[in-house]
């Protein structure tokens, strides 16, 4: 038995919800829960450190950029991505949690693709990492489906009138990765040089790849 220090006299939340028993300040709320769960043996703080290190330092949008650069360079790989994106991405060593069922959607001069999750924050973690704050924001979730072009303008992107916008609302466990159009003037670039042009936002569809002059 372990007696912990805090008791929370401030019941801001609805009293019938268990979470209202925790401290209301967010950092303290997490700390109290982590401390309790560690005492009970339900979590190992070292495992938490490992999870955080994974998503801070190992798994992020450079993974997706490598996939895109290879798709731009290798027609056979592009075909495998179209046929079974989960398997083709696994070839590069990326897969697992929140990327169990991958689909790659290709931008063309006729169609620009853009991904959102209006109901929560579904996002392809193995190739893009943890979603940025704006992707999880009410504004993006609310507006991406109704006014994608206004949202794109807030990212500095204006599409030609002849290019349709196709918005993918991630309502199931399928995760979408946008394959942007390869920038002009990149003939002869190797995959490393190409990957440097691939931004996170270009793989969500709220941005475009960098042009070679910009790097």
């Amino acid at each position: 038995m372990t007696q912990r220090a805090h008791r929370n006299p401030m019941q801001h939340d609805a009293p019938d919800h268990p979470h209202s028993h925790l401290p209301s300040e967010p950092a303290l709320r997490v700390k109290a829960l982590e401390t309790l769960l560690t005492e009970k043996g339900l979590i190992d703080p070292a495992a938490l450190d490992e999870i955080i290190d994974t998503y801070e330092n190992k798994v992020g949008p450079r993974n997706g950029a490598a996939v895109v650069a290879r798709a731009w360079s290798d027609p056979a790989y592009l075909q495998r991505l179209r046929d079974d994106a989960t398997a083709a991405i696994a070839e590069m060593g990326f897969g697992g949690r929140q990327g169990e069922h991958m689909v790659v959607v290709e931008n063309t001069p006729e169609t620009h693709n853009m991904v959102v999750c209006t109901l929560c924050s579904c996002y392809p973690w193995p190739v893009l990492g943890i979603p940025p704050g704006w992707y999880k924001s009410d504004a993006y979730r609310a507006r991406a489906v109704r006014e994608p072009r206004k949202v794109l303008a807030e990212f500095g992107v204006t599409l030609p009138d002849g290019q349709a916008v196709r918005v993918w609302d991630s309502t199931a466990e399928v995760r979408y990765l946008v394959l942007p159009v390869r920038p002009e003037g990149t003939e002869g670039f190797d995959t490393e040089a190409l990957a440097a042009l691939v931004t996170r936002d270009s793989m969500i569809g709220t941005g475009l790849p960098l042009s070679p002059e910009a790097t």
Partner: protein
Amino acid sequence: MTRLHDMGGRFGDGPVIPEAETGPVFPEDWHGRALAVTLACGSLGLWNIDISRHAREKLNPKDYSRFTYYEKWVSALADLLTETGAVTRDELAGGASVRAPLADKALTADKVPGVLAAGGPADRDAGPAPCFSVGQVVRTRRAAESILVNGGHTRLPAYAAGATGRILRLHGSHVLPDSAAHSLGDAPEPLYAVAFAASELWANPEHPNDDVILDLWQSYLAPA
């Protein structure tokens, strides 16, 4: 039915504020702890991903509105741990804690890479045969509600309810969240990507050629 988490198409939220890709993954240290403690507890096997999503959605509407993203995660986690009996309200409130019988299942650091690599696939080799083919015109259920549980979990957003679209692709048979979120079984069904013209969804679409694609289960759809 209106639910706060179902915000697609809502007006009034203001601009989207882009962030640099080089910014911190977790702007506050506690964000990373919140995510990690949620993942670690998830690996205990007491609930599935649909139950955990529903736990966030059923935070009371005032809390859902005022909580930041990871506050929703942590609060829903505390609720789930209590509902499943893994912790007690008294323990949450700072009372004396006892070691949990499940402690031998706790995720250890050496197992993290394997657990993250395995993920939790939602496809199943079971369920009814597909009723719809690519290109077929379908209509979604009129009410964006669970038909299994009143006020229960569903993945049909309100903005796409009662709308007519076209089957774009079949993803195979996937766990039905409406069932799994309430521990009613996987109940797998064919899952489709369905395309809706923006003009079908909105009174004043931005552009006549734009469309919105949603992944929808067979029981959400009827022939049109």
